C-alpha cells in the first residue's frame, strides 16, 4: 500500500488507479474542528440508511407481491414463514424510521446553523428535494404492507393530493390509477417505492455529496469568530 510503483502487480497494471489518491480524496479531507460534534454528522446517517434500505428492499421484493389479494399475505409470509424474512423486514422498517428522523434533524441543523447560505443554495435545494423524496418513499412503503392503516393512509394521502389547486384531481388519479384504491394503485406505489423514487434519490444524493465536496463544509459561524480572535487556521485540531 505504501509504494505501488515499486512492484506493480497484475491488478495495478490492468486497473491503473492510484489508490492512495482515491483514499486521500475519499477520507483525507481536512475538516474544521466543529465537525466532531455529532449533530454536524447527521447527513451521513440517512445516506448509510438509504444504502441499507436499497439492499434489504431488493431482498424483500423477492417475496413481495403487489396485488390487493396477495400484498398483505406476502408480507405475513415474509415475516413468519421465510427464513430471516422477519430480520430483513425489521432492518428495512427501522432503517426507514431512522432515515426519516435523521434527515429531518439534519435539515433542522442546517437551517439552525444557517449552513444553507450563499454559495450553497444548490446544496439546500437538492437537500429539500431529498427530504420530500424520503417522505414519498416512507408513504409509498407504508402503503405497500396493505393493512387497514396502509389503506387509510393511502386514502388520506391521495385525498390531500386531490386538494391541490388546479392539478389536484389529476394528481390523485395519477396516484390511484383510477378513482379508488385497487390493483393499479398497489402496482403504482410499488414501482414508485422500489424503482422510480430510489433512482431519483440515488441521483440526488450523488449531486448533494458532490456539491458538499466542491464547496467544503460550511464555516462555523462561531468558529469564524474564534479564528479571528485566536488566529487559528481552519483545519484539523
Amino acid at each position, binding site marked *: 500500500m505504501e509504494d505501488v510503483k515499486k512492484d506493480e502487480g497484475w491488478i495495478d497494471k490492468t486497473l491503473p488507479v492510484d489508490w492512495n489518491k482515491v483514499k486521500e480524496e475519499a477520507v483525507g479531507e481536512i475538516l474544521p474542528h466543529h465537525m466532531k460534534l455529532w449533530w454536524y454528522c447527521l447527513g451521513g446517517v440517512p445516506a448509510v440508511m438509504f444504502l441499507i434500505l436499497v439492499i434489504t428492499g431488493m*431482498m424483500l421484493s*423477492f417475496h413481495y407481491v403487489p396485488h390487493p389479494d396477495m400484498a398483505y399475505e406476502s408480507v405475513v409470509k415474509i415475516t413468519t414463514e*421465510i*427464513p430471516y*424474512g422477519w*430480520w*430483513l423486514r425489521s432492518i428495512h422498517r427501522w432503517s426507514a424510521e431512522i432515515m426519516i428522523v435523521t434527515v429531518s434533524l439534519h435539515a433542522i441543523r442546517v437551517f439552525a446553523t444557517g449552513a444553507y447560505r450563499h454559495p450553497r443554495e444548490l446544496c439546500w435545494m437538492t437537500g429539500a428535494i431529498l427530504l420530500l423524496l424520503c417522505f414519498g418513499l416512507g408513504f409509498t412503503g407504508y402503503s405497500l404492507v396493505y393493512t387497514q392503516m396502509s389503506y387509510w393512509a393511502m386514502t388520506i394521502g391521495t385525498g390531500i393530493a386531490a386538494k391541490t389547486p388546479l392539478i389536484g384531481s389529476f394528481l390523485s388519479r395519477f396516484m390511484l390509477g383510477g378513482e379508488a384504491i385497487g390493483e393499479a394503485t398497489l402496482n403504482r406505489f410499488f414501482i414508485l417505492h422500489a424503482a422510480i423514487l430510489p433512482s431519483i434519490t440515488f441521483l440526488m444524493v450523488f449531486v448533494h455529496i458532490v456539491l458538499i465536496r466542491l464547496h467544503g463544509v460550511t464555516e462555523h459561524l462561531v468558529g469564524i469568530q474564534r479564528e479571528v480572535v485566536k488566529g487559528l487556521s481552519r483545519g484539523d485540531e
Partner: protein
Amino acid sequence: MSEKDGGGQEVSRRDFLANAAMTVGLVATIGTAGVYGVRYLVPKAKVKKFVDVLVTNLKELRPGVAREFIDASGRKGILVNNNGQVKAFSKICTHLGCEVEWHQLKKEFYCPCHEGFFDADGINIKGPPPRPLDEFKVTVKDDNIYVALEEV
C-alpha cells in the same frame, strides 16, 4: 502488521488493535448478513413426511392376492402378498405412466400399454420400462398391514 522487512511504516499497537477490532466487526456483520440473506433467498428443501396408514390385514390379503389403494393426493398403489411377503408398489408404470396390473398366476406386474413386465419384487424384467416400480414401505403388525404414505 508491524513489518520490519517490507520497509513499511511501523503500525502502533493501538492502531493495530483498532484496525483488528474494526475488521473482525465488519467481517462478523457482513458475514451474518450474507448468511441470513442467502437463507432468505434460497427456499428450504422440502422434507417429505410419511405416515403409516392402515390399508388392510393378512386375512384379506391372502398369498398371491393383490389389492389397490389410493394415497391422500390421489395416486394409486398396489399391495401384493407374494407367498407371505407383503410389498407395496406404485401402480404407475415407470415407462410412460400407465397403470400396471397384477397377474396372479404368473406373479408378475403387467403394463398393457407397451407390454412392460415387472416381477413380484417390482423389478423390470421385460419390455420398455427403464427401472423398477416405485416401492412403498410396508409394516405388518398384528396381522394388520400399514403402508407408509406421504403426508399432504
